[in-house]
């Protein structure tokens, strides 16, 4: 078996060389194309040679391409440094990478609010349902269905356990976005005859804000609550906003951009007092901060699996049973999941999600200790630089999410200079556009501050060496970028930037 795949690999490499030599024989062939093809052929050949018997290895092509690129880049650097000692305009590049130092090239992952790596223990659970146990969990007539149904119910138990809920109150969805839409649209539509008002905040995730906006088109009133400079909701303002026809209050537990924890228990008791349903988007909070749906009077709660080291493409919604919360389903169909979310469940995803939830509970103390330690180190290291500040409340926060502003540096250009660290300047949904974060705007930050902020996410698999590397890299490159900036020069000279009248606007 091993030998046959070895032979096959060799055959592939020899056909590749044949193709290239045929190409090279053509007259008027572009020399640079020929050279690059030849070099890629040599890397392919090398990969086969360096193979130490494990020919089942599946190197990605990206890896070969990256290696090649690195080789070319380092070769050109060394040529330049030997021929002339004068700086050759590649300093910016040198600042953006650490190359040819005997280390790898793949960036450090520090964007845990966007998504987390799948835990190997989760994958181990899932693989069974991708190999042998492929039954439809809703098939009641045979053992294939029974075995997957058993796994689904076990997973439901684990998911419910983390927030002290009953497993019957958990509904599996495709993710927190679907859960949030289901709540905002479903609850509002169910009670639309008597109640026409929804309350939410300005720092919610896009999916809640957009769903609420969609309900405005259906004739609902929506109040978007302001937050203070720390990112916290004013409880007095919330209570005043509740009207007799309010059906839902939706406040997120942990903010995805600034990591601020809202006072869930207080909001829950206000909602209970006024008999309004309380929904919280706990995508970033589930399993990471203590949540008890009964103690906090939470009626609906959205969960996402891929934020807790589980598989992507699945999430859940907690819907309280006593007193019962009614909502209109988004999807019509076979009536699975108490009729609230039709569609066949994906047992691999559900089982993986359940295992991820179980691990979140058993590893809670260890993860908390680890993340708090690294978070403290990172915050202290970053704030040691001049003109930096932490966004959001310093006290009411989840330590794994750190949002820092670097004044007089443009956030996106800093991210460009940090090619060896995977970071984001805000939520992944808005990272494609260059508009400043609406969350930081809601905190009262100006455009310049909102543009120069970066979010760092620390998780279970982050190591101390990575944090050390990040602190060093950020400090160096912030200094470098500020030296390029005329604004920084003016600040150093003591000019107040607000006093300048900019022309050309």
């Amino acid at each position: 078996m091993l030998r046959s795949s070895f032979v096959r690999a060799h055959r592939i490499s020899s056909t590749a060389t044949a193709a290239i030599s045929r190409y090279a024989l053509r007259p008027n062939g572009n020399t640079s194309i020929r050279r690059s093809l030849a070099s890629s052929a040599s890397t392919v050949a090398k990969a086969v040679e360096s193979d130490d018997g494990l020919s089942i290895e599946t190197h990605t092509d990206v890896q070969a391409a990256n290696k090649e690129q690195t080789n070319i880049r380092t070769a050109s650097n060394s040529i330049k440094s030997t021929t002339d000692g004068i700086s050759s305009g590649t300093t910016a590049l040198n600042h953006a990478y650490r190359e040819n130092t005997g280390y790898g090239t793949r960036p450090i992952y520090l964007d845990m609010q966007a998504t987390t790596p799948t835990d190997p223990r989760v994958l181990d659970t899932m693989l069974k349902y991708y190999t042998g146990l492929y039954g439809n969990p809703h098939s009641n007539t045979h053992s294939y269905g029974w075995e997957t149904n058993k796994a689904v119910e076990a997973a439901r138990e684990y998911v419910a356990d983390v927030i002290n809920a009953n497993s019957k109150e958990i509904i599996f969805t495709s993710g927190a976005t679907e859960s949030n839409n289901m709540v905002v649209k479903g609850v509002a539509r169910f009670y639309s005859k008597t109640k026409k008002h929804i309350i939410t905040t300005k720092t919610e995730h896009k999916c809640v804000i957009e769903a609420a906006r969609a309900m405005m088109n259906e004739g609902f009133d929506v109040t978007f609550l302001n937050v203070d400079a720390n990112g916290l909701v004013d409880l007095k303002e919330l209570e005043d906003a509740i009207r007799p026809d309010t059906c839902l209050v939706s406040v997120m537990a942990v903010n995805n951009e600034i990591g601020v924890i809202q006072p869930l228990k207080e909001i829950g008791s206000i909602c209970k007092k006024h008999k309004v349903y309380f929904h919280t988007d706990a995508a970033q909070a589930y399993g990471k901060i203590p949540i008890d749906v009964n103690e906090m009077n939470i009626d609906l709660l959205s969960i996402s699996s891929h934020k807790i080291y589980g598989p992507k493409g699945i999430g859940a919604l907690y819907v309280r049973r006593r007193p019962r919360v009614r909502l209109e389903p988004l999807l019509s169909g076979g009536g699975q999941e108490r009729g609230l979310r039709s569609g066949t469940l994906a047992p691999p995803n559900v089982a993986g999600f359940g295992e991820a939830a179980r691990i979140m509970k058993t590893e809670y103390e260890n993860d908390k200790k680890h993340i708090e330690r690294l978070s403290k180190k990172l915050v202290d290291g970053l704030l040691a630089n001049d003109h930096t500040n932490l966004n959001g409340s310093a006290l009411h926060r989840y330590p794994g999410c750190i949002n820092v502003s670097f004044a007089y540096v443009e956030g996106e250009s800093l991210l460009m200079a940090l090619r060896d660290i995977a970071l984001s300047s805000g939520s992944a949904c808005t990272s494609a556009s260059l508009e400043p974060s609406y969350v930081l705007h809601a905190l009262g930050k100006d455009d310049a501050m909102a543009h120069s902020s970066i979010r760092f996410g620390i998780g279970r698999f982050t190591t101390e060496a990575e944090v050390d590397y990040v602190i060093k890299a950020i400090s160096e490159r912030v200094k470098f970028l500020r030296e390029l900036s005329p604004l920084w020069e003016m600040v150093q000279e003591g000019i107040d930037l607000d006093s300048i009248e900019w022309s050309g606007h």
Partner: protein
Amino acid sequence: MAAAPTRLQSSKQFNNYNFREYFLRRSRESFKQNMTLQKPEEVSRAFLDAKEELGILKRQGVISQMYTFDKLVVEPLDNKHH
């Protein structure tokens, strides 16, 4: 706990830097934690848990070697360090 040294060895099999470091750290920590266990039922449960985890680590370590990716910028390229 006889499973501990093997758990360390299996953790080292991970090609992925973050998973390797995590399981090395956790194996050491849980070994130290379980050293103080006295009650026989606690000891036997810890042993069963460790055994189960060893199975996971062995399987996932092999999978991690089959699907390899570039090394991270904090990872030395020569494997002698590990």
